């Protein structure tokens, strides 16, 4: 089962490597991992997407909690939550027809063209991972020159919060 886990930790040098090291040492999967400081610069917030049986997820949760730098964590998949991911795609846009088509597709997916060059467009798209996948599927494979994705960030809905 896929789980999306939020971790609030001390914003200390090496904190990220402790989490990454834990996953590799114990053989847990990491589908994606994002991290940045929060509004309180002493805190880092991390979102980890992983897969595993219930037993494995239980161990992951316990092992993350055991890290001395981890303050709190939450398995977002346990309740209502929102996930968003950012993707930048560079596409071929050389001819008028190609430019037209890319613009149209970007609009449909509520993407934005953020860089325009002679032969390429770069499109910015946010949404759940499935939407980003759908956008890539909709593009002609030959038109995709480069993609970069951040991995998911997640937050609980309504009163569900991960705060100290």
């Amino acid at each position, binding site marked *: 089962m896929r789980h999306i886990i939020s971790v609030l*930790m*001390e914003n200390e*040098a*090496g904190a990220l*490597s*402790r989490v990454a*090291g834990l996953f590799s*040492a114990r053989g847990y999967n990491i589908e994606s991992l994002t991290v940045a400081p929060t509004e309180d610069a002493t805190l880092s917030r991390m979102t980890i997407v992983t897969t595993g049986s219930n*037993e494995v997820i*239980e*161990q992951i949760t*316990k*092992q993350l*909690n*055991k890290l*001395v*730098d*981890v*303050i709190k964590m939450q398995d977002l998949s346990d309740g209502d939550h929102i996930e968003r991911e950012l993707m930048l795609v560079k596409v071929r846009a050389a001819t008028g027809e190609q430019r037209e088509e890319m613009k149209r597709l970007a609009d449909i997916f509520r993407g934005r063209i953020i860089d325009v060059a002679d032969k390429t467009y770069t499109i910015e798209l946010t949404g759940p991972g499935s939407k980003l996948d759908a956008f890539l599927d909709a593009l002609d494979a030959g038109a995709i020159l480069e993609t970069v994705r951040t991995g998911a960030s997640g937050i609980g809905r309504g009163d569900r919060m991960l705060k*100290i």
Partner: protein
Amino acid sequence: MAELELTGAEIVIRCLHAEGVEYVFGYPGGAVLNIYDEIYKQKGFTHVLVRHEQAAVHAADAYSRSTGKVGVALVTSGPGATNAVTGIATAYMDSIPMVVITGQVPTAAIGQDAFQEVDTVGITRPCVKHNFLVKDVKDIAPTIKKAFYIAATGRPGPVVVDIPKDITQHSCTFEYPETISMRSYNPTSKGHAGQIKRAVQMLLEAKRPVIYTGGGAVLGNAAAPLAEMARDLGYPVTSTLMGLGGYKANDPLFLGMLGMHGTYEANMAMQHCDVLIAVGARFDDRVIGNPKHFAKEARRIIHIDIDPSSISKRVKVDVPIVGDVGQVLEEMNRLLKASSERPEQAALKAWWAQIELWRAQDCLKYDRSSAMIKPQYVVEKLYEITQGQAFVTSDVGQHQMWAAQYYKFDEPRRWINSGGLGTMGVGLPYAMGVQLAHPDAMVACITGEGSIQMNIQELSTCKEYKLPIKVILLNNGYLGMVRQWQEFFYEERYAESYVASLPDFAKLAEAYGHVGMRIEKPEDVEPALRRAFTEHKDQLVFMNFITDPRENVYPMIPAGKGLSEMILV
């Protein structure tokens, strides 16, 4: 009055004084020279100069195992730190509280492939409870405070503090924090009241109960409440290798060690019980074998552990209790006393009758009429002569198992060995840490000719600090534990398990300034041991017992098999 500024090196020393450290086990080098210069000037603790950094960490670890206090080691950067890693990992696997201070190259040189630079924090990260790189002299005191706090609380473990050389030169005012609180680290010690109640109820309903205790009962100093519970209920007790001494081995309720080389009665009881209470034990693969076979029969499991990640890791449990064993057992004992219910005595009687049948197998019997010295006999005699009062350290291999099976530990913290990592070479440095902590105690190191050579240089340290350790070498000429596996599982292909051209250990011991003996006949075992503990009481005696090279450790459960698939003698 302007506050006095101290250098980082002075601050390190002051912190160790504030922590009440008695011994620092260490080895100098460039990156820690400032610290050593301050050690030269101070009197608060004794620095013990070992002959290899690995031994410094093992000695600090054993100091901790035998006292319950935090052990301290100090090593230089680069090779000093890498030599320390085996010691750190050994302590980590057995949850031993320790602070290891490592020197680091100056901050400006970090990342430059500087002389004797290694990424100590990176290398040790997977085998420490936590580690720190100190980047500012002002952080030294709070970091060391945190290090001791983290090492000793919750599930204990080693903490590394890496200090670059320039930081030990810089100065600032010194104040040692009196208390520490960390928002990210708050271990629980009190168990959940509702779970404790459920556990007590379950224990009272048991028809075929077993108490399975482990290293946590020793680490948590819970021998008294454990004994109280077992005696109050009259339930059988078994212990892991790490828990030995946590419950009196001579008590009739005690079934001996369980697991791969555990007793028949302990393993059969584990396999057939209906209620199992695990007390600071972690269902290790050497203990329960294959979890699939282990969970065969319907049973309910209560598990007390301070580390939630130990619970339901290998075996699903019914009543998890996260907390300190001592506190939880005391609470359970209170509820048991207050309850009017008692376990069903007829069922318990039948259960004990069954256990006695298993016990009658006498699984630890061995050939007592052999013309060769049997290793088991040596351990039995050691037990008799020391009247069970010695601290016994061991190395890793067959001799370790014989020590565990035949020396009956009646008190916690007397049996000092490496269970989790199984590190050959710990025996002698362990004995050093123990002897320094308990100068008047009898300390025996039971070892093999393979293991002892992994840290034999420490005989020199023993001379320097006048440590009257009794080294009991069970010399079978083989890497015996390896040989045993090759005999059982590799059709007797003894690949590289025979150690040719061993040194003359007696002469070697003499060369280091100690007493050496070579004992070849069974009838000479007892007199040799007696002489060692009387005539040579104050000296290190190295006893080279030439033992039966083909002796095996029984019972044995082959790796991956279930508890009832024991190979008996």
